[in-house]
């Protein structure tokens, strides 16, 4: 199929889902007339009609909750919450209803709901539009949390999510939408239990997900030229975490840096680091390092935003320090 953008990949996945299953519908803010804030549903209103492409009011809690209800009622809703920042207004529905109802009802009700949202910083949109909270969501049992970083995953994980009987939350890093990649048809369908090794290496494991994957790969490139062979693991599923792929990598390289755009304290990186140390402590040649965002609201000016976020140089430095260079 060749190169397509991440945006086109999401759109392709949505379109396939809408074409193949009449119970699938899309709702969210500006998904219809506007064509999606990130143009992921451009043209859908004409193609699929207003019954299945539903523009909602700015009522995050209610349209996410309506997604839960519609799923309980036999539909296969895809809810687009424009960005993770606005998903905070829907936390009640996500944490108190979507995540609990199956277990709390003794298994009587499943909620086959997919919620997609853009996440992440790096576009100079300041503190209230730059959150990376997928790690928070991964804290919650009862839901599945995905962070596709490649065009293949952007399409394939969405399609896989629509096969899941329980709520799935997909975090699409906003920085990735215009980026191009090679769509790998052979990698479909995506297995939602497996992390992916994006680059094989022997000296150190760079463990990451989402928008930070590309920074880790860039760092790995630089390191390669210095003679350091870095393996890059794309977690891509934050819950349930595939720790075995991580451990296999760490057991091979004996060193690990976890890169996570979330803030450091209580970060997803902290969880990954803890799990490595709980299980593979004696395989390590040094402590697990973390590259996370600096603990400030993300500022608007580019130089400050860049400084606040994980960057390839910071990853390279962390590797140097771990390897005693």
């Amino acid at each position: 199929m060749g190169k397509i953008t991440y945006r086109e990949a999401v759109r392709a996945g949505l379109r396939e889902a809408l074409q193949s299953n009449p119970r699938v519908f899309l709702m969210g803010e500006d998904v219809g007339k506007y064509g999606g804030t990130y143009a992921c549903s451009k043209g859908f209103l004409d193609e699929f009609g207003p019954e299945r492409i539903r523009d909602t009011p700015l009522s995050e809690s209610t349209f996410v909750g309506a997604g839960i209800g519609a799923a309980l009622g036999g539909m296969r809703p895809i809810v687009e919450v424009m960005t993770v920042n606005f998903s905070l207004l829907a936390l009640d529905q996500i944490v108190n209803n979507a995540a609990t109802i199956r277990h709390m009802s003794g298994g009587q009700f499943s909620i086959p709901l997919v919620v997609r949202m853009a996440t992440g910083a790096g576009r100079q949109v300041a503190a209230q539009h730059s959150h990376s909270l997928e790690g928070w969501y991964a804290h919650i049992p009862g839901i599945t949390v995905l962070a596709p970083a490649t065009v293949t995953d952007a399409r394939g994980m969405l399609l896989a999510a629509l096969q899941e009987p329980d709520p799935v939350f997909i975090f699409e890093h906003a920085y990735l939408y215009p980026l191009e990649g090679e769509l790998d048809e052979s990698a479909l369908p995506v297995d939602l239990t497996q992390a992916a090794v994006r680059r094989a290496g022997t000296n150190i494991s760079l463990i990451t997900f989402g928008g930070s994957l590309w920074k880790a790969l860039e760092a790995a490139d630089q390191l390669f030229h210095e003679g350091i062979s870095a393996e890059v693991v794309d977690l891509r599923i934050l819950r349930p975490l595939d720790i075995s792929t991580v451990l296999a990598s760490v057991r091979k390289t004996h060193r690990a840096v976890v890169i996570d755009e979330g803030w450091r304290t209580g970060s997803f990186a902290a969880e990954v680091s803890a799990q490595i140390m709980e299980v593979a402590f004696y395989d390590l040649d040094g402590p697990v390092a973390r590259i996370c965002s600096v603990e400030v609201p993300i500022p608007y000016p580019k130089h400050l935003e860049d400084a606040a976020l994980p960057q390839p140089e910071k990853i390279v430095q962390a590797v140097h320090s771990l390897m005693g260079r």
Partner: protein
Amino acid sequence: MTLVVDRDHGWELLRRMLRIRRFEEKCAELYSGGKIRGFLHLYIGEEAVAVGAIPCFSSEDAIVGTYREHGHALIRGTPMGPLMAELYGKANGCARGRGGSMHFFDAARRFYGGLAIVGGGLPVAVGLALADKMQQRRRVTACFFGDGAVAEGEFHESLNLAALWKLPVLFLCENNLYAMGTALGRHQSQTDIARKADAYAIPAEAVNGMDVLAVEAATREAVDFVRAGQGPYLLEYRTYRFRAHSMYDAELYRTKDEVARWKQRDPITLFQQQLRAEEFLTDADLDNMETAIAAEIAEAVSFAESGSWEPLEDLTKDLYTPAKPAG
């Protein structure tokens, strides 16, 4: 005054209200005895609402309730045994004992909780109604909530969305005048809840929630309206909770006089008087009714007592739907 009810139906309404009242009195006793723990929000005083309203819905319709939902589940038809067992936390409860008092569920009767975050059930009800509309089913979703919920954003968002999309949902506000301990006038600038629906172009009506026949008549009409595809409707049942918010509170927020005044409007006492005035009810009838209910409760308690605790190895069972076997 003429009673617009025949004897059999009158009996049934009375019996249903008594069933809730006696069940909950037993719950209070069992709570004091330590058999029931956690929160226990009793419905005593408000029985006319569930009894008048719930039977207006068909078995295909959906019910979304709150944490004060014992009466709703009973009237919906979940047998008393599994409800009592749920209160005990036993595995033979209506939610395997996982939820307790606030989280009754019954998929077979389309009873979707028992959702205990105030206002949190409204969006779910809107979604259930959306699913029905999209699948061209002539079902109605009953969405119960209290006066406290009207202060939540989800109330306003849900009314707006349901009206905008003309969804078959019936919003049923059980206004017992207190959001826990905060009186309606202390949390609402507009205390006439039915009027709030105006802002969303939703027809609404306030009903005497202590009068089971008034509740029934208004609900039946509202269900017909919604089922006819005319969009949502809001009913405000004006009622009163005789007991504490949960099992015990100091009731500093209301006077004993106020409670006593409302108790004079006890829906069960009033309805009994009506039936007696029509010579539809004798002391012997009432005794028989009470005896049958007491037997049902005794049986429910023994069902709960004899239930087993969910095994520890099932702690995380049902968190996710088990994968279908391959092939």
